[in-house]
């Protein structure tokens, strides 16, 4: 820590890197889980579907902070010890997957049944039809909502300050308590969050445009 913001920048950037790391892992795992669980929900697989509904409800209806505490402080009591890093990405993944499951379930449900029927009428098996028709059409429709959730997950990586993971908020907080330059340092951290989220949003819109089907009114 130094005299000016410039001296603190490397530490803050390092914190941002850590935030990005746990977010990237957490978001990836949660999106993959969300697609799989959303598909199972959409298909109405007995028992599994109900189990997923319970999971979604539990993780949507308890605060993320409580989930982090459970992972970090409660799990050791049953012999599972997670590092701050592990806690951070697992928490983001489990919490996020609950929302992504609902997002993808809704996306798959919104695929016109007639197009699914057309694939089945050609003799394509249900699983193949899902992969070739429901999945690509459903995913296109879910990009905006899934992006909003991913941005939320990235922002929420700041919660990991409570387990001592050296992400951006943790680093900023440490610098502030040593230098007392509250406004500058938290201001810089906020700007970093803001710019990253803006970039994620822009990348998502670019992705959407890239996937847009010529001739269609909307991205399908």
């Amino acid at each position, binding site marked *: 820590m130094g005299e000016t913001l410039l001296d603190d920048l490397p530490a803050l950037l390092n914190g941002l890197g850590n935030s990005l790391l746990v977010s990237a892992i957490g978001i990836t795992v949660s999106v993959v889980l969300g697609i799989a669980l959303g598909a199972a929900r959409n298909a109405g697989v007995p028992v599994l579907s109900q189990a997923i509904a319970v999971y979604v409800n539990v993780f949507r209806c308890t605060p993320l902070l409580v989930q982090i505490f459970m992972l970090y402080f409660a799990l050791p009591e049953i012999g599972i010890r997670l590092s701050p890093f592990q806690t951070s990405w697992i928490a983001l993944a489990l919490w996020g997957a609950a929302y992504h499951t609902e997002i993808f379930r809704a996306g798959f449900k919104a695929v*016109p049944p*007639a*197009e699914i*029927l*057309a*694939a*089945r*009428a*050609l*003799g*394509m*098996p249900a699983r*193949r039809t899902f992969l*070739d*028709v429901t999945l*690509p*059409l459903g995913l*296109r429709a879910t990009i905006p909502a899934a992006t909003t959730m991913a941005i939320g997950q990235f922002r929420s990586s700041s919660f990991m300050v409570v387990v001592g993971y050296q992400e951006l908020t943790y680093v900023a907080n440490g610098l502030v308590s040593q230098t007392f330059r509250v406004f500058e340092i938290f201001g810089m951290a906020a700007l970093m969050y803001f710019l990253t989220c803006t970039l994620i949003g822009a990348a998502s819109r670019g992705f959407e445009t890239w996937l847009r*089907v*010529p*001739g*269609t*009114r909307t991205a*399908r």
Partner: protein
Amino acid sequence: MTAPLERGADTILALEDIHLSYGELHVLRGVSLTVRRGEVVVLIGPSGGGKSSLLRTVNVLQPITRGRILLEGEEISAGGVDEDTIRQRVGMVFQQYHLFPHLTVLKNLTLAPRRVFREPAAEAEVRARELLARVGLSEKAGHYPDQLSGGQQQRVAIARALMMKPSVMLFDEVTSALDPELVGEVLGVMKDLAKSGMTMLVVTHEMGFARDVGDKVVLMAEGVVVEEGPPSQVLVDPKSERTRQFLARTQHA
């Protein structure tokens, strides 16, 4: 079609006393129907009479409540049949085309044969281009469905079904959603298909098509076959009062 019997007398499709209920609603009430190889059977009748339901039972998209359906002599209405395999042998074209909007015309055609038969992409594409030429859409291979007119989309849908080399093709009011000036191009494709010897079961309101292309016309109403016979008889000199009523109403429309 002058002499339908010369096209071979072997039965492709036999429906025996088909019953179908949607809950309380008894939609098919004992329908029996035979379609022979190379024959074009045209199904006409008032809306709600069960024509679409009947086609869906043949493509095993809709299980029947009673009766038997035989496809090339094999019972397909019993439990335990492989529905996907049967559907590959029964082509179906819908009123609203239902193309895959995210795939090009070419990919719409090659998707199912590649996935189902594991046909190599190159071979499937050669066949697809041949079929596109047949329906007059060679130039549209790289287009997406939403860039095509309704008539073009419907011709793609016909070609897509033909890619599976079906034993029989089912058409469910495939021109009903089209602007009048586009109806002709789709009927033309169907006429060519009939000439090429394809076995077809066609639900339509196009009486001209029924008269010119049909080997047999079947009038269905309230879930039963009211009358069937050659177009020259059923459409011109119907035996049943119900048929006469229906024809009178379609002529006014």
